[in-house]
């Protein structure tokens, strides 16, 4: 088929911004077959395949796109599935603009091929049309425990189960899925999609034990005593950071984790669920990452009239996915760049009534290579809000580290691992994902889970 010369990506059908800012249904409804084929024909099938190198799990991108052109969507799915166990998730939430798509040759003159959208199309096609026939591997008699059921834990468990290991995942929450369930909202990643992936793991024979906080009900030592021969720790980065400014104890100040967990995991936005949620008139979300975007857009959907994103650097420094920023703007979220909070004020009852901010300017680059924001003197100003959400990052939870002798972490609380083997400082205990890197991405967590599965296999076979 001839190359499609169209310089822009084939647009993705989306709910109207005004309509969707009042519901939790998915924002983008996905490509139709025609749109997918149209977009796929923009791919040049480059010999040197730069896009593949941009994908952390090296999906054979031109191959799966070629299958789409041929109308072989299931074949396309199989290509992706060789290296990515959660395509329906990644197609939706990967920061494509800094991974696969940034390397795409078509991006030089126009927009890159919409690799993420195509991946989602293929994954959704498979989910809708193909009944998975799971072939359980013959058990090899070895048992592995996985702590945490986020993308790192799920991937590690799935790969080990396919090799014949008897795998049990221990999850602290009552529902498996990690951030995919409690953090990322329904309108970006429908929970059905996540649960479908999880049920296919169960079909592979993976046991999932929820309500199990490792370090409390069982220690890592006890997992070994119970007969597990290796443990993978994929406990994520769930400990919320606060700003450390006066007024954080006021009513209406909360972490994005609390706000999002009430909404996503506890479904507080639905009348038939009991968990309460604060519905504010006006909200300030502090931060500039995906978490901030999600919190701001949820606040809007709960009926807040004004929602501000307060970010201390400039727009181009924001770590959030481009698409989310774009969608947030369409939905009426107001961005206050180069602005930092210094104090939160409250009324006599202790309810937030405003947030005091200062203006910033960009100075010298800091350790992360981004220009460091510096406060502009006497630029204090008040923003009237009745809720403040802190979305300024998370650190790994210390529970497991503190309850496991010999498990070492760095200054930021991240578990220390050998980069080649992903083994921690405790023999037989492996770790990956946000617990090791600090808050990162779904695909990196999955990559680590995958690598760990291989290394655990090697480790056990050598014993």
């Amino acid at each position: 088929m001839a190359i499609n010369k169209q310089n822009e990506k084939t647009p993705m059908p989306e709910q109207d911004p005004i309509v969707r800012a009042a519901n939790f249904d998915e924002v983008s409804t996905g490509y139709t077959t025609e749109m997918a084929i149209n977009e796929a024909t923009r791919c040049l099938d480059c010999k040197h395949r730069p896009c593949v190198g941009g994908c952390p799990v090296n999906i054979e991108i031109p191959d799966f796109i070629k299958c789409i052109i041929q109308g072989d969507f299931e074949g396309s799915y199989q290509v992706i599935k060789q290296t990515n166990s959660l395509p329906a998730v990644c197609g939706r939430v990967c920061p494509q603009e800094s991974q696969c798509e940034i390397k795409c040759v078509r991006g030089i003159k126009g927009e890159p091929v919409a690799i993420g959208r195509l991946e989602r199309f293929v994954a959704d096609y498979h989910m809708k049309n193909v009944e998975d026939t799971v072939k359980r591997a013959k058990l090899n008699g070895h048992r592995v425990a996985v702590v945490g059921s986020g993308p790192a834990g799920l991937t590690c468990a799935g790969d080990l189960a396919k090799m014949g290991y008897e795998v049990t995942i221990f999850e602290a929450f009552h529902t498996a899925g990690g951030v995919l369930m409690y953090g990322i909202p329904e309108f970006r990643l429908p929970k059905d999609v996540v649960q479908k992936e999880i049920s296919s793991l169960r079909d592979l024979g993976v046991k999932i034990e929820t309500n199990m906080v490792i370090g409390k009900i069982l220690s890592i030592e006890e997992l070994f005593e119970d007969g597990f021969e290796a443990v993978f720790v994929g406990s994520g980065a769930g400990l919320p950071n606060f700003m450390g400014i006066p007024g954080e104890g006021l009513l209406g100040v909360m972490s994005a984790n609390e706000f999002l967990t009430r909404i996503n995991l506890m479904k507080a936005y639905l009348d038939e669920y009991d968990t309460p949620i604060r519905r504010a008139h006006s909200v300030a979300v502090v931060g500039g990452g995906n978490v901030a975007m999600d919190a701001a857009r949820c606040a809007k959907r709960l009926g807040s009239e004004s929602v501000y994103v307060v970010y201390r650097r400039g727009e181009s420094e924001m770590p959030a996915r481009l698409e989310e920023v774009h969608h947030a703007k369409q939905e009426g979220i107001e961005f206050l760049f180069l602005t930092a909070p210094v104090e939160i004020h409250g009324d006599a009852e202790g309810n937030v009534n405003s947030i005091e901010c200062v203006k910033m300017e960009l100075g010298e680059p800091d350790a992360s290579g981004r220009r460091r924001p510096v406060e502009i003197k006497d630029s204090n100003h008040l923003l009237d809000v009745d809720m403040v959400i802190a979305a300024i990052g998370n650190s790994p939870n210390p529970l497991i580290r503190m309850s496991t002798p010999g498990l070492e972490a760095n200054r930021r609380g991240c578990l220390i691992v050998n980069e080649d083997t992903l083994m921690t400082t405790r023999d037989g205990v492996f770790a990956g994902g946000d617990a090791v890197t600090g808050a990162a991405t779904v695909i990196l967590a999955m990559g680590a889970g995958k690598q760990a599965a291989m290394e655990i296999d090697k480790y056990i076979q050598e014993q």
Partner: protein
Amino acid sequence: MFKIIYKRVLNPMVTWMDIEAPLVARKAKAGQFIILRVNESGERIPFTIAKCDAEKGSVTIIFQKVGGTTKLLDTLEEGDFILDFVGPLGRASEVEGFSRVAVVGGGVGCAIAYPEARALRDAGAHVDMIAGFRNTDILMLEEEMASVSDRLFVMTDDGSNGNKGFVTVKLKELLDAGEKYDLVVAIGPLPMMRAVSDLTKEYGIKTIVSMNPIMIDGTGMCGGCRLTVGGEVKFACVDGPEFDAHLIDWDEAMKRLPQYRQEEKNCRLMNQ
């Protein structure tokens, strides 16, 4: 699913429940808590572990009906199931190394105070227990408290049992009579714990309270349970729930508790 194996009504507002959770029962220590979710649409709510029986595999909670979820929980009977039950969470109480201790409980707080008294006594301390209730109609757990303390003083706000006064009245009386406690433990409503804390501060006696801010996960993930203790932000679910009373920012803690009062009023069950 977790089975309710025993239920007993302690007073019109307070219920005792034994729940089958063998793993939790094996691990739990005094001072720790669990979080449960009654059904799929339910909220996660925390309760202190009042007692466990590792042999039977049961965990006891004693709860007061204050709102939607506790009322819902109370409709369940022996043989019914609770969907989710996670624990033991939080740190265990420090019970070693004390010689004379006063354990003060207020209302449903007695349910939490009594296992604590038992643990302290098992660790070798002489334990006086002061239990306060509004009136005799809601008096409960007298036998249990008597069995784990050397002396038990039951006070009622209205004097309906003949001992009129708040728990602090009794505590002050004992202290002024020359009692030398090396630890006071106070568990009950915030204003009561604060009053005990203010009193013992004057006497310079180390005092521990069990805080119960609003919680979701109970693992340090949401920050909803944060308190200021000694000028530092602490998460009650992982750093507590027990803290040094004299270091707590009580003004802030009292303000934070009614966080969801408005929202809870809108809740379906609350309106019944």
